[in-house]
């Protein structure tokens, strides 16, 4: 479970991640996997930029009147026989879910993929209270066997290699324990998990899913999946619980359509995910399947306080994962190093808002501000701008190191004295250029050994930019 304490270990955890061969092998697949597929999908769809604008507009309009849309959602949902629960904190949300389950004698809960359940630490809490939780998304199932947390918001087991999955199945599936596991292709592993999990759906007394969005106008929850596990989870058991945060609501299904046009393309590079399912209330009196109860738990957990701050734009996030798929830092260290539920750029922007700048101060610094995340974000969230906002907060609260504060103060003073600045930088460039020798690289550099520990520092050409600019013909 995530408790937030791991974030403080980001520097050590990322250094360990760089040396983890299995992790590095798994992360190397990001380029030909997620990145290439997204690029193809965007190139196939000439209206992508317009679709992006429409999706951004839909969420902006929604967030400006979030309270109205939430009230409308609640009213429509209840009209259709659903029940809406409000939770301010993770503890409230856990308690609501637990009471729903225990009051109905639920022993086994099947679960579709939901990051909000990770955010509130639901699995561990329910297990402490004697409820068995069965993750049904293949990636979630793999990490549940491994007793780990997700390292990616849409591909939770992305850090695992195939041999590691083979080994996990061998340890946990009775029928494979005795015999050697002869099958080694991904297809065989998928088939193995399918066989084991299908029985579990039917054993579960309740199914819990997240929501990609909620629709105010119809009182519905919508999930987008590829495996079909979410649909079995919300169709077969007699109780369906939806766990969603308050910013997930959109006014109408048409607004949902605007989001759907960019979601799968940005996430997996599909034009549309295999299943987009709108659930509204429990089964109708004439239906012959579906749950007889439908409950939606609306969680705030700090989101309402973000509105009106420079970080409010993170509330547009549709959890596609494109920012982490394209982030050089995520690509190097993976998701676990970040130490909390949401890794990568969106995690670096969102976590300080949810857990506080002090607890999460490393994350907004885990970026070179290269801007790739903002470039691929379908919701045009200005992630680097938000990192800078949190960095400024960190500095104001004097949470950064003395060395960093001194360096910033020195640089700030120099920058405010242009003549000295030019003299100083000019001299430094001249000296560094002269001392570089024939290789034109430094293997070791005083005051920059953080850089030279892992790579060479290229020698400057000898002049500053300003110097060259002034001498231009």
């Amino acid at each position, binding site marked *: 479970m995530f408790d937030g304490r791991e974030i403080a270990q980001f520097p050590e955890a990322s250094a360990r991640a760089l040396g983890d061969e299995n992790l590095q092998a798994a992360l190397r*697949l990001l380029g030909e996997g997620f990145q290439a597929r997204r690029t193809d999908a965007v190139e196939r769809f000439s209206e992508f930029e317009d679709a992006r604008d429409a999706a951004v507009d839909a969420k902006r309009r929604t967030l400006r009147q979030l*309270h109205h849309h939430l009230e409308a959602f609640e009213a429509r949902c209840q009209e259709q026989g659903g029940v809406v629960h409000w939770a301010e904190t993770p503890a409230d949300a856990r308690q609501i879910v637990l009471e729903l389950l225990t009051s109905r004698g639920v022993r086994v809960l099947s679960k579709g993929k939901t990051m909000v359940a990770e955010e509130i630490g639901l699995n561990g809490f329910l297990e402490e209270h004697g409820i068995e939780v069965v993750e049904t998304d293949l990636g979630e199932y793999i990490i549940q066997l491994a007793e780990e947390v997700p390292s990616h918001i849409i591909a939770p087991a992305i850090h695992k290699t195939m041999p590691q999955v083979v080994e996990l199945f061998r340890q946990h599936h009775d029928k494979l324990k005795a015999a050697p596991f002869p099958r080694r292709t991904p297809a065989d592993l998928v088939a193995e998990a399918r066989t084991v999990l299908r029985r579990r759906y039917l054993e579960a007394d309740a199914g819990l899913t997240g929501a990609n969005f909620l629709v105010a106008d119809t009182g519905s929850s919508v999930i987008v999946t590829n495996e079909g*596990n979410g649909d079995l989870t919300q169709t077969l058991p007699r109780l369906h619980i939806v766990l969603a945060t308050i910013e997930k609501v959109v006014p*109408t299904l048409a607004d949902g359509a605007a989001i759907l046009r960019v979601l799968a393309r940005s996430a997996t590079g599909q034009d549309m*995910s*295999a299943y987009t399912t709108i659930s*509204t209330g429990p089964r109708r009196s004439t*239906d012959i399947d579906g749950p007889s109860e439908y409950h939606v738990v609306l969680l705030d957990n700090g989101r309402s306080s973000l509105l009106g701050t420079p970080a409010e734009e993170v509330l547009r996030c549709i959890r596609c994962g494109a920012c982490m798929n394209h982030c050089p830092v995520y690509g190097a260290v993976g998701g676990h190093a970040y130490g909390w539920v949401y890794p990568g750029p969106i995690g670096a922007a969102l976590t300080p808002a949810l857990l506080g700048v002090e607890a999460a101060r490393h994350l907004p610094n885990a970026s070179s501000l290269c801007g790739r995340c903002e470039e691929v974000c379908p919701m045009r969230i200005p992630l680097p701008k938000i990192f800078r906002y949190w960095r400024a907060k960190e500095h104001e609260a004097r949470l950064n190191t003395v060395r960093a504060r001194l360096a910033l103060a020195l640089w700030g003073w120099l920058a405010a004295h242009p003549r000295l600045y030019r003299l100083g930088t000019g001299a430094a460039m001249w000296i560094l250029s002269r001392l570089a020798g024939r290789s034109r690289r430094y293997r070791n550099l005083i005051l920059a050994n953080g850089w030279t520990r892992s790579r060479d520092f290229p020698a400057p050409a000898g002049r500053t930019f300003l110097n060259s600019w002034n001498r231009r013909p």
Partner: protein
Amino acid sequence: MSAARERILGRLRDRLGEGSQESPCPPATSSVRAGDVDVFCRRLEAAGATVERIPEDSVPQAVAQYLAQRNLAARVRVSPALAKLGWDAEPLLETAFGIAELDDAAAVVPAVLGVAETGSLVHVSAGDNPTTNHFLPDHAIAVVAEEAVCADLETAFSAASGSAMPRTVCLITGPSRTGDIEQRIELGAHGPRSLHVLVTKK
């Protein structure tokens, strides 16, 4: 209602003010025209489904042939909504109506709409159209009428929601899949391993 509800809505009201109530829907950004059945079929195939265009009275034959071609037993679960398609015409095909069960290998299911923009089938739950049948069996054979193919997501959503939302509206775009093992796409994660679509013509 609950105190949590009042506090959450109170915080939002403090930050957002009362705000104006309504705002317009965004315009649809799809350029696909209504009834573009060719586009619909192409996009379904691109999503990993197989598509066959047949006369509306030959569904049982097409189902029997498909099962034979794939070396599957001549036995299907048929959603009750499709019970009247003349299954007697195929005496060697064993049919069972009602909700699908764990050992059903194949199911024939209706789609009330097709969406040309995305190549999606639209399932709408009803007394004679259980959702289970679309997800539990290994092989799904879906039946959709040519004239039910609409242009885009917005049209499909407004048609599917009608006067009241049903419990489940599902857009199905290809067979079940996963990329959870080393980012390689594999079909048949939990839902159907294959999706065969019969597009019927009057």
